[in-house]
């Protein structure tokens, strides 16, 4: 643990709060699109983005309503500004006016994601959710990933079932797959990653303060692209911290997803 920028605010910024901030940053320049966060930390991040630097984002209540305000996580919206039942939500994906942040049980260096099952698909050793909307998401709207526990079991050489499409698979499939394919990044409890290398493989973009490059390499099951200079994930401002702690997540649900 060296070179950590000590945050000036007190109490100290937690790892979960850096994760929230990193997730929020994913939607910074998204524009007037639906933010679809999956997971508690991305949900807090999307709400933080909307309350600060990305006010045009659309957010759902997790069911069929678009929220006109930004309630605390778990609270119902006080204002409803729109209706988005599943049939419209699936159709919205095809318009591209959405940036989803999905989870990943497995993710490879090209950004291929698996949430379906572990082992042989015909008779898996561990059945998970199923493909859900990962195939349509990745071919139609920007898709980022959130991994609350960065480990070699998640970041693997090969995923067992490609649900979300990565760069190599999209390129091999041709123009209809690559046309709207965009994987802006991956956020984990250790850092922020992107695919901005010549061969579009996962690259370390920033480390959360307190994390070392070595730690990330050890927790990644494939050779990770690491630039010579790796910055730290930026500190939240005092107002961002206040919003996270007092307005969006007063119950501290973020700490259940990311250990201190």
């Amino acid at each position: 643990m060296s070179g950590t920028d000590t945050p000036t605010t007190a109490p100290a910024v937690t790892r979960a709060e850096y994760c929230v901030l990193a997730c929020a940053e994913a939607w910074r320049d998204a524009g007037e699109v639906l933010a679809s966060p999956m997971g508690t930390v991305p949900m807090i991040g999307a709400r933080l983005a909307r309350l600060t630097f990305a006010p045009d984002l659309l957010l759902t209540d997790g069911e069929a309503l678009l929220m006109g305000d930004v309630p605390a996580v778990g609270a119902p919206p006080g204002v409803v500004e729109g209706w988005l039942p599943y049939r419209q939500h699936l159709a919205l994906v095809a318009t591209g006016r959405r940036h989803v942040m999905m989870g990943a049980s497995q993710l490879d260096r090209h950004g291929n994601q698996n949430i379906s099952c572990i082992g042989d698909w015909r008779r898996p050793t561990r059945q998970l959710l199923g493909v859900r909307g990962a195939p349509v998401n990745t071919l139609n709207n920007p898709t980022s990933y959130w991994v609350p526990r960065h480990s070699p079991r998640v970041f693997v050489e090969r995923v067992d079932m490609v649900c979300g499409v990565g760069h190599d698979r999209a390129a091999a499939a041709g123009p209809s797959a690559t046309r709207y394919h965009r994987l802006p990044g991956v956020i984990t409890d250790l850092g922020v990653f992107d695919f901005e290398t010549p061969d579009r493989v996962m690259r370390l973009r920033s480390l959360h303060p307190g994390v070392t490059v070595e730690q990330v390499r050890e927790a990644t099951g494939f050779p990770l692209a690491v630039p010579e200079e790796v910055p730290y994930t930026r500190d939240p401002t005092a107002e961002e911290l206040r919003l996270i702690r007092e307005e969006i997540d007063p119950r501290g649900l973020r700490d259940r997803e990311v250990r201190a």
Partner: protein
Amino acid sequence: MSKDKTMTAEEVVGRLRSGMTLGIGGWGSRRKPMALVRALLRSDLTDLTVVSYGGPDVGLLAAAGKIRKLVTAFATLDSVPLEPHFVAARQRGAFELVELDEAMMMWGLTAAVHRLPFMPIRAGIASDVMTVNPSLRTITSPYADREELVAVPALRLDAALVHLNRADAHGNGQYLGPDPYFDDLFCEAADTAYVSCERIVETSDLLKDAGPQTLLLKRAFVDGVVETPNGAHFTSCAPDHDRDEAFQRHYVAAARDPEAWREFTARFLSGDEDAYQAAVAAFHEEEA
């Protein structure tokens, strides 16, 4: 006025046959026609192909060995991410799986409704959905773009089972919650469709407290109407009732242990729907 289509859940099941393709409405653990599913569990029907945005409907039918083939994008209990019986059934190779993307399901049902052989969609290409479903085909756009898209085959159904908040005796079905899910598509994609509901009302009462856009199902696509109060239990049926989270947790715990599941089955699933609802009420009295 059109004919009276009211019937019992047993009469619905009596019209179904082993080997049929059944579409089940709702989504995950939301507004599932659970009373009709429970009636299916009590029947000898088997060898079913089930098309569903999967929840405990899939779990219960899988646990009872009723499913030969499942067409789905997922199975989940929403507040509990993994459906335990679905997981166990997959891990023991209990049925054939057609694993499609959520949007592919929607367009497959839509193709069936429109009596089209397929619908083109930008989903599936480059993913392993194509690998695990080798019969899926792509189609090249006949226009200048020449894009290659997936031709999602029509998901035609022998019968559809859905649960709504209200219906009249003729099969006009009304949802009062936030999401219609795909229940109208399921009914229109099916040769026969059966709707269970919280309450059957007079046609003239349907729009007493709701707008016309709540009338989701048209009677021309409905063959039977069953009044089953709390019939979506333990899934949600807003605004009539929320998901029964305590009972769902009980279901999950039981499903993870064979002995506990035998007890669960004996306690809740060995009698008719009235016995089920009485056992659920007793469960909550004990929990209170």
